[in-house]
């Protein structure tokens, strides 16, 4: 969430360039996709294209429509209008054909809690007609990568949240999907498990699997090749994390203060201040012109008796970008 993690985003982009060549390109294309629940437009005229070897991230606030899009891509929810193409197959017309090459991990844990780890893996392997040897080889490798090798006999219901998510991923990968759909796969997962999780995802991308995931974690959003920023069922922005950052208007200042709330109070609404965002012990302040505004801020804070430790210009994180972009949408 802090600037230290932003650097993680950069190697990801170079990876994309490395892996764009091998294996036939598999694409997922959504066109004019809409879905309403009664009067509520959960997804409104959404378009995007994802190419093989990409990790495409859907990001947005609660209720933005991420799950609804995922479900339509997985062929478990029918779209009102629009079409989806997965690997040349029209999902809206023939969802069953598409499901052969697709793996979907729902937001809510979707495996059988009264079955063991091994039994769940076996079950999903059978549903995708994976041969016995393939299943054994793949499951051993995946269990090892996920740190679950010692838990094969444990009931899925007795796993921790993070272990459950990793088991979900293993079951999704027990066949060889060309498209992997993950709906908030790491929510409630500890940092170590999340790193293992992403390790597996990077390897998959290397082998040409198209990955679409939704996430609530900004550091994860930074690791995606491209991001779609969703709001109220619409894609507001869709680009690489780096280019999204470039579109952010203004410059970001990080101010460290013992009283960040008072600091926000003092600065909100002041001229030249585009946005104020609390980030734990610090406050991110977006300004139009740092050279002019920094002295003004210092003066204003002194006026309000808010003590500060430091002010410095920082590289924006993706969270800053989203707040900035969605915030300006909101007022526009």
């Amino acid at each position, binding site marked *: 969430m802090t600037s230290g993690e932003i650097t993680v985003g950069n190697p990801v982009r170079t990876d994309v360039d490395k892996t764009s060549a091998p294996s036939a390109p598999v694409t997922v294309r959504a066109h004019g996709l809409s879905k309403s629940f009664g009067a509520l437009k959960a997804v409104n005229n959404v378009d995007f294209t994802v190419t093989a070897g990409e990790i495409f991230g859907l990001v947005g606030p609660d209720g933005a429509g991420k799950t609804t899009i995922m*479900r339509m891509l*997985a*062929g*478990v*929810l*029918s779209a009102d209008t629009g079409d989806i193409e997965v690997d040349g197959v029209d999902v809206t017309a023939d*969802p*069953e054909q598409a*499901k*052969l090459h*697709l*793996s*979907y*991990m*729902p937001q*809510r*844990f*979707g*495996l*059988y*809690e*009264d*079955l063991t780890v091994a*039994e769940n893996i*076996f*079950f*999903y392997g*059978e*549903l*995708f*007609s994976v041969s016995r040897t393939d299943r054994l080889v793949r499951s051993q490798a995946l269990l090892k990568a996920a740190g679950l090798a010692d838990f094969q006999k444990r*009931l899925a219901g007795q796993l921790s949240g993070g272990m459950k998510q990793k088991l*979900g991923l293993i*079951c999704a990968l027990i066949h060889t999907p060309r498209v992997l759909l993950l709906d908030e796969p790491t929510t409630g997962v500890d940092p170590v498990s999340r790193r293992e999780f992403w390790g597996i995802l990077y390897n998959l991308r290397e082998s040409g699997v198209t990955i679409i995931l939704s996430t609530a974690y900004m550091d994860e959003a930074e690791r995606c090749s491209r991001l779609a920023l969703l709001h109220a069922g619409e894609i507001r922005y869709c680009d690489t994390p780096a280019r999204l950052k470039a579109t952010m208007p203004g410059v970001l200042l990080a101010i460290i203060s013992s009283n960040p709330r008072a600091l926000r109070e003092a600065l909100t609404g002041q001229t030249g201040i585009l946005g104020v965002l609390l980030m734990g012990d610090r406050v991110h302040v977006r300004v139009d012109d740092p050279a002019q505004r920094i002295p003004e801020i210092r003066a204003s804070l002194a006026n309000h008796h808010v003590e500060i430790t430091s002010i410095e210009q920082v590289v924006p994180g993706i969270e800053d970008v989203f707040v900035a972009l969605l915030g300006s949408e909101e007022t526009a």
Partner: protein
Amino acid sequence: MNLRRLFALAYKETLQIWRDPRSLAIALLMPLMQMAILGYGVSLDIKHVPLCVYDQENSQQSRGLVQDFVSSGWFSISRRLEREADIRDAMDRGSCNAAIVVPVNFSRTLAMNGTAPVQAIFDATDVNTTNIALGYAQGAMAQASREFVTGWAAAHGTQPSLVGQINLEPNTWFNETLDSRNFIIPGVVAVILALVGAQLTSLTISREWERGTMEQLISTPVTALEVMLGKLTPYFMIGLIDAGFCLAVAIFWFHVPFRGNVITLFTTTMLFLIVVLGIGYLISVRIRSQLGASQVALLVTMLPTNLLSGYTFPIDQMPAAIQALTLVVYARYYVTILRGVFLKGSSLTDLWMPIVGLSVYALLIIWLAARAFHKRIN
């Protein structure tokens, strides 16, 4: 259809059933308990029909007649009445289901004519009990008749020309007790299997929705038909075990004579199980909560099978419109089949009519069930 996926589903479902011993115990023990309750309910009712006695003569002979009713074990005297008008009152209050009226000059008429009328009145609200009670009354009368005849022979040295005091002689040969019970218990088996079968499968689909496992399942290439067959297979096995239990209790515990052959019983029972499990499955597909599905299954099976299957209320005594309605009550076919196989030793060909009825039903249910489930969330 892919057999591998079908087996995977059946195996998974079996594991889940196995891991839930409470539900499994209910599935296996419930039918046995119901069998005991309903089976004994049948025989208890029939053992002690409450009887009102209006003995106008109160002689040794009339008391002997009443005693024959009591010692038969089928009646217990609930009230002794002093006036004819009290009979009606007693019946209205439900204090008796049957009454006997012994006339003032009973023993004199009997001695002179060798026959004497005794009036028997039955509360006909419950046709079934009435029929049975009537049979008992005839039995008791026959016993009294035999005593009278032996007495007469001893006194006169000859047989009386006119035998029993009361009409309906032929029924003295007929053992009503066993017959009604034998008649009803196969029906009880049918009703229990109809109830339990639908309960078993009414939860299969709704459970997946409720636990959140359905979304991932329907994102795989598994087909709706595979889901249906895979899920029904283990319950079919449980259903067969339940049927075996119930039929064994009927034969070995309640001693209902089994005159037919096991193959006929087995094939028709499988046919019936397909129908009841299919109905539970259909409900499960339609209703996404487990509680709701199980309640609907109970409602849909309980009333029709109890009232319209002919297991307690004979279908041929129903009004024509209701009789027509019973044609859609699948349990009626199995009730007929079981009675035939048990009591008459009927073969598959003898039973072709109910078997065709049940087969049509089974095909219809399978067809509906196979089309009912869609791999969609909405």
